[in-house]
């Protein structure tokens, strides 16, 4: 997902650069504004509807199924309690098997924290906020064995960057 976001950003910003540069290079001829405006604005309405149609498709495909409840194995989901506090994590279970579907129930004892799961390559896999007085749920399925890390992703004070712990994911049962 991260690389998709990256390439989409590069493509669209690259496209904007090309458009701006070509329009800048055109800005020497001194044509009549009325003529240029009539010609250029003809395309705007088409572009508007294109953006709307694309938006509907993107919204439907990214919101269905609802991203926060997506789980591959709801019947066998393990429930893990996560309590954050300045500056450590308490988890009711930290060892899993590849293929385990887990429902993390995440809360905080003091301030806001962010519960971020990183794989063995330090690539973020999933996250949820940890908030005092509330329990946020995160559904996640471990797909590969290895040493996963939990990092705090919401600034929580002096040792925010040290608020980490390890999850061990063993091979599939």
């Amino acid at each position, binding site marked *: *997902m*991260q690389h998709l*976001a*990256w390439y*989409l*950003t590069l493509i*669209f*910003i690259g496209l*904007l*650069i090309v*458009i*701006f540069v070509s*329009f*800048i290079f*055109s*800005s*020497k*001829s*001194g044509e009549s*504004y009325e003529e*240029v*405006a009539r010609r*250029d604005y003809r395309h*705007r309405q088409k572009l*508007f509807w294109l*953006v709307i149609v694309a*938006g509907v498709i*993107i*919204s439907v495909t*990214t*919101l269905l199924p609802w*991203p*926060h409840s997506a789980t591959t194995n709801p019947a066998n989901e393990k429930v893990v309690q996560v309590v954050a506090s300045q500056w450590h994590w308490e988890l009711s279970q930290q060892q899993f098997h590849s293929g385990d579907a887990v429902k993390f129930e995440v809360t905080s004892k*003091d*301030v*806001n924290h*962010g519960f*971020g799961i*990183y794989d063995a390559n*330090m690539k*973020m*896999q*999933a*996250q*949820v*906020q940890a*908030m*005092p*007085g*509330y*329990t*946020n749920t*995160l559904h996640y399925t471990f797909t590969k064995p290895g040493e996963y890390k939990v990092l705090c*992703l919401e*600034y*929580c*004070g*002096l040792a*925010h*960057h040290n608020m980490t712990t390890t999850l061990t994911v063993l091979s599939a049962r």
Partner: protein
Amino acid sequence: MTTRTQSVTAQPRERLYLQLYIATTLAIFVLMMLAGVVMRAVQGTYIHMSPDWFYQIMTLHGAGMVGIAGLAGVSIMWYFLRRYVSLTPGLFLANLILFIIGVVMILGAILLGKFGGGWTFLYPLPAKSMGLWSHNAAAAYVGGLLVIGIGFLLFYLDVARALLAKYGSLGRALGVNQLISGRIDTDHPPTVVASTMVLIVNTIGTLAGAVILVLTLVNLYYPTMQIDALWAKNLIYFFGHVFINATIYMAVIAVYELLPKYTGRPWKVTRPFLAAWSASTLMVIIVYPHHLLMDMVMPDWMLVLGQVISYLSGIPVLLVTTYGALVQIHHAKVRWDTPAKFLILAVFGWAAGVVPAIIDGTIVVNQVMHNTLWVPGHFHFYLLLGMLPMVLGFLFHISRHENETTKDRSVGMGFWIFMVSALLFIFMFLYSGVMSVPRRWAEHLAAWIPYDQWAALFGLVVLLSMLFFTVKLLARLTHIRLEA
């Protein structure tokens, strides 16, 4: 509808106030950029700094940049709006005085009181420092923001009074009546439309900010008075989102007013223009849940709203302002002086910044990008390469000699150096986000340090170019004209 009812005869007092605004703006921009570069240098291990100092500087950089962007935006809005309605110079000055008082309080809180709760003062962190800062320091910070907010509210109240006196209602000033009737008055100034939008959204936003600031202040001294953490978060992000967006919506007035002077083409209101600004008024207010996409306890419909409105918010930016700016220069005979270059760069930066913002506003992406360096990547795009160039274009324009024709080659070179280094600086944020580097971390893992080091170097070049522009602009401060 008439366009210019107020005499624009230069008034020394107003000119002096504007000069004070500009000097303050430039000085704080440079200092806050320095703070930003220091943070990237610390993460890149070029500089050693203890985490408490890092987080204090982080708090200073965030609060300082948001505040000074607001002040710069006000100076642009005031500069052009006073040509159409009668604004009160004293309240323009009062805003600046309150701003400076607030800055002094915030500096005291951070540098003396060691407050490092982040600029967003996310409840209940200000009260729970684990002994790092006192409640008094937190109160000075929160109080400083409150004082700054009061200054902005005073300014907006004056804008509201002036717009109502001239147009009778905010709806008419925004052009809603024209949209409904279908009769478009092409003489209705874009500046009035944009100012009305900013007035509406930022008054509501600043009031929301005032509510949570006061509640936080009370909680500091009466901890039994608890605030619901989710409500607090909603209020803070609503305020923060609206305020920082309003800075761009104020600054873009410079594009509408000044770009036509370099292209020789008019920028008139049209039906899509008015529709876009009316839609933006609503969308800026309701889009803020995209900051809370990882709070699953939020109602699902609000998270859907956050994603969908994030996407729709890009339409006015891309199809009205960006499209309009491109038509302004397309096959025109543009006078590519420094202000015109900065203004077109600004429109590009704003439009480009929308791309990573919309992508991150999609829940499935946000699940792996939220609170990584992708986030400062996208907002630096439209602040550093959008909002700031709007301010620089405005300042270089109003400070030019009346008959200035020669181009300052050093500023021209500075422009290119600034643009390229800022782009590279921003892309280091975005790429670090792709690599899952968390934001707001004082110390980075070894694998992330090379990105920080490159970012620090590019940031240093951005800082030096901004310092150069500042020196140039301060030297031209006496040339500033109110009718430029």
